[in-house]
């Protein structure tokens, strides 16, 4: 099964119309990947669908980089009992 990192990058690539290879963990969604505010909303929605989780909007939208998104989503999955291994 794909890792959290791979899945986050796949969703980001799909929403922002990029290729996964272009996306690095240090990239800032806005400054480096060009996410507009509407796309941030879309990213949150798509991450929730991808991982089957519910994220607090304020906390989720405060996440700035791909690396922190991976960390944030991993934590939310743990909190909400979502299996990331299977």
């Amino acid at each position, binding site marked *: 099964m794909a890792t959290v990192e791979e899945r986050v990058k796949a969703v980001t690539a799909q929403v922002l119309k990029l290729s996964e290879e272009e996306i690095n963990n240090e990239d800032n969604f806005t400054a480096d990947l060009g996410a507009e*505010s*509407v796309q941030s*909303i*879309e990213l*949150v*929605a*798509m991450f*929730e*669908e991808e991982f089957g989780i519910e994220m*607090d*909007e*304020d906390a989720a*939208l405060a996440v700035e980089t791909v690396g922190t998104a991976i960390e944030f989503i991993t934590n939310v999955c743990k909190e909400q009992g979502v299996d990331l291994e299977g």
Partner: protein
Amino acid sequence: MRLILVDSPEQARGNFYPLALSRPLWELRCGFGSLAEKLIARVGTEDVAYFVPDYMAGAYREKVSGPVNDTSVLDGNDLLILDPRVKADGFDVASTGPSEVGVDEQGEVLYARIAGDDTGKPAKDDIEKFIAAARAALPNVKCSPARWQYIWDLILANPEQITADFAAAGRSGIEGTVEQPCTIRGSKADVYIAPGAQVHPMVVIDAEHGPVYIDEGARIQPFSRIEGPCYIGKESILVGANCREGNSIGHACRVGGEVEESIIHGYSNKYHDGFLGHAYVGEWVNLGALTTNSDLKNDYSTVSVILDGGGGIDTGSTKVGSLIGDHTKTSIGTLLNTGSYIGAMAIIMATGKPLPKYIPSFSWFVEGIVTKGFGKGKLYETAKTAMSRRKCEWTAAEQAMWEAVFEMTSPERKKAIKKGRRTLMK
């Protein structure tokens, strides 16, 4: 004699959403003012107490001087307990007299007149129990006064109510300032311009088919046309508006473009061009430039409205526009379908297409779907900013009320978000 307004059961209140999400039914407007003003005038007392849903009690206490959800008001005095859906004009029960409970065909209590001596009988720790006990202990009278059933009833009754309220106010003439050239069509007896109101040059006031009342401090800017019956609230500004017949505009609104047979609560803005017709707009609403609603279907059939995210209700009228809850904002170019329900605290970003007919409260409508957007925290911040610009305070009690509304409206919002996600995943 003490008048006690008791808000209707939740099921009946739902017929007045999204406006009644954040206010008791008697704070809805029709004609010059609120339903409460009309009921109080009809009953003829200044001693008024209120029972509202618990979640809005704190916020409502900040808005009125009378007691709210205080059962001590049930003691000792002659009481007239009234359901706010009863139309003031049709209520012909004497305020005082022997105790009796007015019950409709379905067995619902519409009023209870309880003489002071009898108030000791029912238990007083809960208003619902008090009314139920009064009904059991006191003589019941069958009654069927005219009642408001749905929120669009208020829209449809508004022109007639303005005319009645103008007659009841008994004022006419110009006490404010009118700069020339300005044209008044019809009888000047059907126009009242209150002290402090300003009518700038190049304004047409057309009272041929109904009265026009411009309240204190209102400002009518050049190239506005106001057609009666019409009420312009205190300190509101018309910005070159085509204000057609049947509008009630609340306190401190900014209104431009074309508006017809609509009710707008205080502090709302429709500054720019765009058509608003047969609409009911809450307070602190901002309609972006070119926001337009349809109020008539192409096939002239009756308009249905979705009030709870489920099935539509046939209004029986061919003309119903939008219902827009408090603090909702629309972007430029928003197109609202006939009979649209736009909840409170919603953010609408137009796509160029007409919106879905039902958008739940606290929704962020983005890219054609309902989303969670930036969440309710951001909406509260915006509300706070909008209110501070008009020197009004966003209080803790108000926020607590909105938190409750957020929870109450969560099921329909989640459903709409899910639907949006499915579209997104395609």
